């Protein structure tokens, strides 16, 4: 019996470890290529603001799962206390809100460069890719947090910029707001800001 287990262990462990490191390397390489393309688009003077936005949407936006980001921006207790209709309305509005928030800030990165530093696997369905955005005045650490969906595809569900998680930040803001207001009021405010 011992021999069977040892045999199995020896066979499966390298395959498992290899599969793990392959995912990390895959995302590291993918982010390095995308980052390179991103900065080429951003710093190409032939592109006006709208062209930049369109090209970057094509290049980058497929990496993000904005719908999941929207769903996770509400904590469990809030998610369970609202109706399905409210939940759907919220995710639809917030998905556009966060997408625009991200795209509207792309031009702020002009004149900077980015270096993908490392990727680490947190568990079998999470990989964090660390990169820096460097400029003359310093560098900022960005962590792209990926999860693996049921089709085995990796998507970004959170971004950590200078130690601040975007998702965590919205959760804190929504929870704080809901301690004094109703969910419908939150939806109205969100729609106004979107």
């Amino acid at each position, binding site marked *: *019996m011992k021999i*069977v287990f040892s045999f*199995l262990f020896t066979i*499966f462990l390298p395959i*498992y470890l290899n*599969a793990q490191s392959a995912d990390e390397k895959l995302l590291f390489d993918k982010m390095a290529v995308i980052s390179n393309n991103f900065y080429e688009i951003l710093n190409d003077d032939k592109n006006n603001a709208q062209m930049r936005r369109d090209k970057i949407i094509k290049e980058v936006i497929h990496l993000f799962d904005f719908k*999941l980001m929207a*769903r*996770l921006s509400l*904590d*469990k207790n809030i*998610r369970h206390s609202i109706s399905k209709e409210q939940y759907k309305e919220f995710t639809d509005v917030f998905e556009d809100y966060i997408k625009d*928030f991200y795209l509207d*800030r792309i031009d*702020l990165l002009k*004149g*900077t460069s980015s270096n993908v530093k490392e990727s680490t696997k947190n568990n*079998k*369905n999470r990989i964090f890719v660390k990169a820096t955005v460097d*400029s*003359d*005045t*310093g560098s900022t650490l960005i962590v792209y947090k990926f*999860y*693996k*969906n*049921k089709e*085995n595809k990796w998507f970004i*569900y959170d971004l950590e910029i*200078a*130690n*601040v*998680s975007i*998702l*965590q*930040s*919205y*959760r*804190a*803001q*929504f*929870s*704080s*707001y809901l301690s004094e207001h109703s969910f419908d009021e939150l939806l109205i*405010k*969100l729609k106004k*800001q979107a």
Partner: protein
Amino acid sequence: MKIVFTFLLIFSLSLFGGDFVDNGFEDEFEKELVSKPSATEVFDPLVHYNRFMTDVNDMLMINVVEPVTDGYRYVVPQVARKSIYNLFENLYYPVSVTNNLLQLKFNYSFTETIRFLANSTLGILGLFDVADEWFGIKPHKEDFGQTLGYYGVGSGFPIVMPFFGQYNIRDFFGNITDNYFNPTYHASLKINDAMVSYTVYTIVRGYKEVNEYSLSDTSYEDITKGSFDLYPFIRDAYEQNRNKLIEE
């Protein structure tokens, strides 16, 4: 043999499965999001004052600090502003080395000392960060708030200071303690009148903040524009950042 196959099946599934069950899928992320100490339940007895002061600071930032900084950027070249920044950072050495030592980070205490010596001599009284640029020795700043956090002292409740912005009680008292190790503070104490002395020190600190802000690529408005609710946005960003610095 059946047991072996059953075990094998379970083992393989647990290794290669990884499928999410759609029902309650978001709950899988709860652990990592809720476990953060800055999460959503915040004890904030000064919330009304804090909200008010955040709005005052917001107005000050947009209507006073932003235009003043723009003018300052226009008049003082970037290289000079960077040198002023380096000078203040070099003067921070006693605070940083003390707190590195208090946290038993002897390697960082050593590199901070090397940085101070190199920058004070080769870097002409700290005007140039030669330690980093020539020798690649990076700063490892620590403050007393971080030291208290390192030893498990909780952040306490949030408090917003006029102009200087977001703090928590731990960092607020940590900051007062750090002053006693800061040469800029001791220089201002040489002024006999206590009120003038405090005012001068506050102005110097304010100037340091404006100079540092002038070197930033991102404006205050760019950062805060995406917030849904300004005060909890700043409060949470502050706590997340401080927690991360303490973890490191």
